[in-house]
């Protein structure tokens, strides 16, 4: 069961460890993926997200919209880091090229029914190129709006919609093909 922390009532001023653990387990991985989008370095992303959670704990922060707060904080930390490093935001052309690769090789799934569907879906999503995958996750899993996603990824809402429809197209194509594509047929 997925607990929506945005709606969980904050009863006492002190941060509940159990609640915090739930939040950490629920959001850590997706926030890391989001940070990698900006800093393109997994270790740096891990440390940014880690520091955010530590800070939340010590400052006993209980924002009303936790999800939004987490993503915005990660974004700001990433931009600060990039400014410090005087790095440009790296180009992702090669990431999009990997779509061809993703089309070609996929583990054959024997069971597609019920929970099999979910597992398959989960796996297929990881084959999407980085930006597209982020857009899909942020809309379907995190529940952000086009406008929010546009702001968090620094792209236009039109592009968000475009990524979403291309993601759906890709996922649907994978679901119907089931087995691997024959690489030798051009």
């Amino acid at each position, binding site marked *: 069961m997925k607990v929506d922390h945005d709606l969980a009532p904050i009863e006492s001023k002190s941060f509940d460890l159990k609640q915090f653990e739930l939040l*950490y387990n629920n959001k850590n*991985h997706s926030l890391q993926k989001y940070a990698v989008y900006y800093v393109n370095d997994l270790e740096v992303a891990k440390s940014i997200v880690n520091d955010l959670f530590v800070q939340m704990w010590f400052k006993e922060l209980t924002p009303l919209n936790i999800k939004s707060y987490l993503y915005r904080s990660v974004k700001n930390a990433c931009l600060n880091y990039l400014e410090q490093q005087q790095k440009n935001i790296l180009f992702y052309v090669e990431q999009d090229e990997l779509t061809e690769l993703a089309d070609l090789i996929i583990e054959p799934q024997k069971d597609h029914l019920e929970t099999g569907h979910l597992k398959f879906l*989960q796996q297929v999503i990881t084959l999407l190129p980085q930006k597209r995958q982020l857009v899909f996750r942020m809309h379907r899993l995190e529940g952000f709006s086009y406008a929010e996603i546009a702001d968090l990824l620094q792209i236009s809402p039109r592009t968000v919609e475009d990524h979403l429809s291309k993601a759906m197209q890709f996922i649907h194509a994978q679901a119907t093909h089931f087995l691997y594509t*024959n690489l030798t047929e051009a």
Partner: protein
Amino acid sequence: MEDKIWNCIVKRLNGTETADSKIILDLWLAESELNQKKYKEAKSIWELSPKIQPEEPSTPFHQFATQLVPKPEPSSKKISLFWKYGIAATITALFLMTGLYFYKNNHQSKQEIDWIVKRADFGQMIKINLPDSSTVWLNSGSEISFASTFSSQPSRLVKLIGEAYFEVKHDQKHPFIVKSNTLTTTVYGTSFSIKAYQNESITSIAVNSGKVGVLGADQKNKDLAIMLLPNDQLIYNDINKSFAKSNIANGDVNSWTKGVLLFEQAPIEEVVQTLARKYNVKIDATQISGSGCRLTARFNSQPIQVVLKALKLSLQIRSTQVGQTIYLKGGNCM
């Protein structure tokens, strides 16, 4: 056309349908039962996706939580304890000096130079910024390492395994040095490409702009320094320890960073290695090795099928896929 339909599908599923998209979608649905089925499948994907479980955090919570309890500093505690006990002056001084000595040593060992390693896996290509604001493009299956104190050293030293394209920031006072296989390349501010994969006997260096100096690292070639200018390419063969210099078109030095695959009389074994790295696929070429086949071709960001087709058309090399491996057969080249 299909892109447009999916855009309309998403608009409907998201509840942001426009008058136009509604018309287009309804027309498409009316075309066939297959289309209606497609829409239903899309709808179930859309509705199923929010139920996906979040992935596990890379650091489990119990490990992360150790940061939530502040720990006291052991070394400073040690020193203050000595002060507290007020032992005879000389002995105190002696202990204190010993304590400070150990503290300083302890503290210094934490300041060991860290080597930063950046890696591009098979199927990947990455762009890295170095601390001196030089940029490096790393090709698939390649790795570079440099010290965390890179900017404060007399030379800017980088170690390379694989293939990289460098755009080096000009700094007359601090030479930029790349160590790869057995060659050492020195520049002050230029752009050049080095290909030095560990399992290949050929190392090549090509210059885009500026001047590049290459030194052989083994005893025989220690004094041999070769100067390369723009559009020069140096090919070093580790088997017979020979150097060969040739010309390369200016745009071709870093075309791979733009997704271009370029082969010029490349032996088929080298082609296979390059494909395996770039597309992250397993290729079995045991049946065609020694065929003497060489490929001359250029591919602009093409999927692997196109390359395999070219192999068939030009060299009569057939490919079959069994499981996750591509097997190559034939090759009419002798």
